[in-house]
């Protein structure tokens, strides 16, 4: 089974991500489907269906129903595309999303600290990279200067 980092450990990935899907029949339990497809078919999908966002898609579109979702994945088409960070913060902070937020796509070690701080708790590291090493970067810094999606207070409120 493929692996991913979740809650700071390497575990088996229980989910299947469908990049594209054309019919509800093709969606089984524990499947992650594109946002647009989910929005159109949400009432006929299995309860355990997650969605994924492209980096230009807007969390506003699901603001009222986010907590019906077991999992939200956010795609990083390139590691340098930083839109997914804002999407995660909005989901966590504005819409109070409690479930898993995972990053997938061009996800590399040196982004994980930032991603975690924006509220991601699961990371599908790019296949050619070392997951063990990536895991260490979740804690590259022990002090944070600013508020994020991870509930840590900025250091100025601690000092």
């Amino acid at each position: 089974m493929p692996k991913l980092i979740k809650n700071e450990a390497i575990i088996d990935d229980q989910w299947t991500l469908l990049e594209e899907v054309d019919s509800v029949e093709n969606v089984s339990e524990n499947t992650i489907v594109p946002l647009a497809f989910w929005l159109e078919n949400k009432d006929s999908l299995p309860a355990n269906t997650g969605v994924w966002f492209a980096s230009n898609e807007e969390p506003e579109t699901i603001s009222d129903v986010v907590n019906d979702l077991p999992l939200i994945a956010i795609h990083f088409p390139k590691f340098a595309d930083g839109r997914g960070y804002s999407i995660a913060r909005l989901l966590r902070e504005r819409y109070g999303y409690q479930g898993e937020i995972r990053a997938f796509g061009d996800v590399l070690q040196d982004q994980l600290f930032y991603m975690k701080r924006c509220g991601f708790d699961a990371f599908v590291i790019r296949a050619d990279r070392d997951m063990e090493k990536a895991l260490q970067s979740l804690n590259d810094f022990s002090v944070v200067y600013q508020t994020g999606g991870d509930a840590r207070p900025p250091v100025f409120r601690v000092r």
Partner: protein
Amino acid sequence: MYKYDEYDHKIVQERVAQFRDQTNRYFAGELADEEYLALRLQNGLYVQRLAPMLRIAVPYGMMSSTQVRKLADLTRKYDKGYAHFTTRQNVQFNWPKIEDVPAILEELASVEMHAIQTSGNCIRNTTTDQYAGAIADEVIDPRPYCEIIRQWSTFHPEFAFLPRKFKIAVNSVPDQDRAAIMVHDIGIQIVVNDQNEVGYKVYAGGGLGRTPMVGSLIREFLPEKDLLTYLEAILRVYNRYGRRDNKYKARIKILVKAMTPQVFAEKVEAEWEHIRKSGSELTDTEINRVKQYFTAPDYATLSDTPTELAARLQDNKAFKNWYERNTATHKQSGYRVVTLTMKQIGTPPGDVSDKQLETIADLADDYSFGEVRVTHHQNVVLADVRQDQLFDLWQRAYTAGFATPVLNLLTDVICCPGGDYCSLANAKSIPVAEQIQSRFDDLDYVYDLGELELNISGCMNACGHHHVGHIGILGVDKKGEEFYQVSLGGSSGKLGGGSNAAIGKILGPSFARDEMADVIEKLISVFVENRTEEELFIDTYRRIGMNPFKERVYAQAH
């Protein structure tokens, strides 16, 4: 000056470790070139024409003499014994080895310095007026706010991979703007409202480079404690909606223009409403804590123009010139703000040797409470000099070559490294600066011309701020040959007669390098013939327009 506490130290040390590991992984082939590129840029490390280049952060331009000495030491150990002051108030090393950078960072950390976010598509060093804290006409000392922004922007998790680089500048003087806030991605003007509350006027969408623009006012008055939440709202709107398909259209100025400043401001307001009460809302405790680091130094009680100064000014013309040009009124009686100009002919603007750095540190220790500031004109300021010590200081600065009394005059050229060092250049810029400085070496004449900004860039990226020079020079490439385009009427705002920020207009066809001093001379002659008494070049240009200049310059060419 801000002093690190245990938290600041920890962050900078953890950064050194992180960057060392990244560099090791790169050399071990575990990081691809383009991945390491993004990471090294966030740490100020470029790879340039002749060698790597490392840009070291100087938060809002301030350094202690200890830090300056450390830089001198590092240039000897890891570079060729000199460094460069930049238009963003930072310091660059031109010849470090990539392998040495982690060690350089470690040494920098020992004196509370780093290279964090000095480049790359993230929030860069926040800049401000180099006279901050020392001049009477500021609303309030802007440095604590800059430091608050520095900390907030350091490793901001949401904004490390923006569409493009992002620069914030703060100004606190009502009718002078030494920080050029109108040509920054965000410009903050500190103001006091009629209830006597401190706050900010916020501008967004200014910037130079390929599509130069002056920023738009997006908020008339932002309350003091809302600084970070409002910045966060702007950055979030930009991060989500800024263009990522074309790097030339990725700056916030393009977004603000496309949306219109009104719509952009509405989007920001809507975003801000959600987060203004978040953990980023500033507290009085924090504002006061940071302010404590910027209290006035231990000034002596002195009166203005002591007799020894008056006497020296009487009998030494060179000293008097320097006093009038390179020193400015201080808020504390008996003191002056001194600018050491790094503009000796024959040295690229902003270049300093290890020895010169040490001299600067010594001068700062002996005359200015051990503290210096770098200016966006590539000069250095000693902010708190006793008037009765000015003559001594001048003598020493003169010997060191820092007393060229040309501050803000034609020969106080801003100039990027250009084709001599920069791999992006279309043309050399340093020789052009030198040619013009040599042509205008008659000080009395240069004085008589009054304040005049001449800015030179080697390419469209505008590191030398050519768009906002009263006279701007841009290196262009024509079929593999170097040419220079001249623009007139640019202004970074408020300098020279309180005039507004403007982007210069192109004069006409470009010139060969060896024509440049002649061209400038012709432009100057048009000014001299047309000006009214007291008028500066920029005022005359605004009054008479481009044509007279154009006619003179191109007349003989045909």
